[in-house]
């Protein structure tokens, strides 16, 4: 009766928060948990020995390939994907509501009179990265904004990459009045790069990011809060419902909430 948690990087900020939240709920329910580091997109052969049919598994982001997921789903008593969805295999999932969060961020900027937006991308191999960008593009159309492809900057959910992309943009002499980053850690680095480039935040440029944490609070960053430990807890509950004999299909989306801080709203 083990609950396995598959992740591609147990030490990363996002993954460790998911594991923390999920483990608490699973252990409270009397399930022993085992965290396994695999992937990204690990093959079926990479699944550990010792998976039993009454076990369950949480798969965080893109730790397993579709083939490995299919094999896992067939083999154990329940699987829940965390911040991941697959086209091929119908595995239930728990995610943040990326569309709602991005809508809240862009609506906030537009309500502050910002019209010239820059987007810092996440990792497009991950569902969160793809969904947030698609949602951003929808919002751009809904508000009649124009964001040329050069304004979509590489970030990859890596703060250092985001910082470099924003600095490059400044060197090109581009003018803009808001930066939306696909996560808050990239947004903090973008904010620093802007200030290094002698721009006033939020006077010249507003900066907002997806997700929240103590670093965002410390940097005075406007975000949509998306509690990652809560994501882990909710995912664990979905898994437990399956292990108790329930059949779950589809995906559960957790609401986001706009938190306005000093980096916007000048």
């Amino acid at each position, binding site marked *: 009766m083990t609950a396995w948690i598959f992740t591609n990087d147990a030490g990363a900020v996002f993954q460790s928060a998911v594991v923390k939240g999920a483990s608490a709920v699973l252990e409270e329910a009397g399930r022993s948990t085992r965290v396994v580091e695999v992937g990204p997109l690990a093959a079926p052969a990479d699944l550990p020995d010792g998976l039993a049919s009454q076990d369950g598994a949480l798969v965080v982001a893109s730790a397993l390939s579709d083939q490995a997921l299919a094999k896992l789903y067939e083999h154990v008593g329940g699987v829940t994907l965390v911040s991941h969805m697959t086209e091929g295999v119908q595995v239930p999932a728990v995610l943040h509501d990326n569309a709602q969060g991005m809508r809240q961020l862009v609506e906030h900027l537009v309500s502050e009179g910002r019209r010239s937006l820059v987007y810092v991308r996440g990792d497009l191999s991950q569902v969160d990265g793809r969904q947030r960008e698609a949602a951003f593009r929808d919002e751009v*159309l*809904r508000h009649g904004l124009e964001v040329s492809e050069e304004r979509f900057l590489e970030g990859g959910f890596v703060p250092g990459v985001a910082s470099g992309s924003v600095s490059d943009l400044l060197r090109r002499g581009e003018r803009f009045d808001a930066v939306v980053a696909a996560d808050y850690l990239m947004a903090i680095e973008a904010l620093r790069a802007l200030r290094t480039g002698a721009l006033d935040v939020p006077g010249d440029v507003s900066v907002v990011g997806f997700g929240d944490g103590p670093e965002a609070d410390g940097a005075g960053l406007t975000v949509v809060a998306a509690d990652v430990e809560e994501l882990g807890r909710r995912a664990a509950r*979905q898994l437990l419902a399956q292990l108790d004999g329930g059949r779950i299909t589809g995906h*559960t*989306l957790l*609401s986001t909430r706009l938190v306005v801080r000093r980096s916007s709203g000048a």
Partner: protein
Amino acid sequence: MSLPLNRPAGMEGLRRNNLRAVLRALYRGEARSRSELALVTGLTKPTVSTLVGELMEEGLVTEQGRGEASPGGGKRPTLLRFETRARQVVGVSVGDGQARGVLSDLAGTVSAMHVTDLNGDPEAAVLEVVAGLRAQLDAKLASVGVGLPGPLSAATMADALTGRLGLPVHVAGRAELGALGQLAYGGGADGTLVSVVVDDGVEVGVCLSGGTMHYGSDLSALAPGLEWSSVEAEIRSVLPDVAVVDRPGALVLALRSAAAAGDLRSMHLCAELAGRLGAALAWIVAILRPAQVALGGPLAELGSPFLELLRSDAAERLPAWQTSNLELTVVYTQQVSAMGAVALAVQRELELLFG
């Protein structure tokens, strides 16, 4: 289900009504103590005390310290509070190829949403959504509300789902619930609210008299040429290069974008669609005199430019006094009608919101 409010009518009827009256007065802040409850409801103090005791056992009411003594002196009353988080309800909206449900407390605060594909079986999809949200319960589930697209039979579905779930299930049209959702949780204006959902046809929902009366109907016959299959074909002929998209709204957004960029054929199609809808809308406005009309379904993605086209179309068909105060807005139907389903479930179980 141990909620005392759900016991059948008959001998229990009077007591149940009294319980509801007490709960409603606390929920709306009309009374904050047992003696205020006696004043507001007209019940005797011993009766109120007994009812409050039952509600406290159910966790729906808690004591919250003491208030100020009355000017004449006397004991400081024990303050009571309605616990909006003591029960949760599920509201589900079916349409757009999906069933989408929200898990809400009694104040309309949503903690989770669950989405599943319809796969041609709305009843199964609703059950899947409820199963997904039951895994996320933080309190006892009181009831379920469901909004269905026009042609599906609400009564049959309610009976079937109640049997399968072992819970009270309340079903209505999703356009009707869209109007109810706008009123209850969407900041809808005072007065008559109308929701128009353009999807496989034109569904209309009406909410009157502060929510005590609501109903839905179908206007497809009065506004032909708006079923999604033909609108989709028209958009595709105007915008042949748009890639295959995973949802109707994305194609409509592409049309909006092209029209905004000055593409003449796209602009013409938007005006044409506004004209088709405008014919039915004019009747709605003339007869119902709504304070607000909320447009939903894929065409809502045409946004404020489309609302302006609708407004000028209405202004051509009707005298100015009938259109000058009209508020037009766009809504995300699936979300608003899921919240309407929450409002329906709360109202039918507890009679808290309206009346």
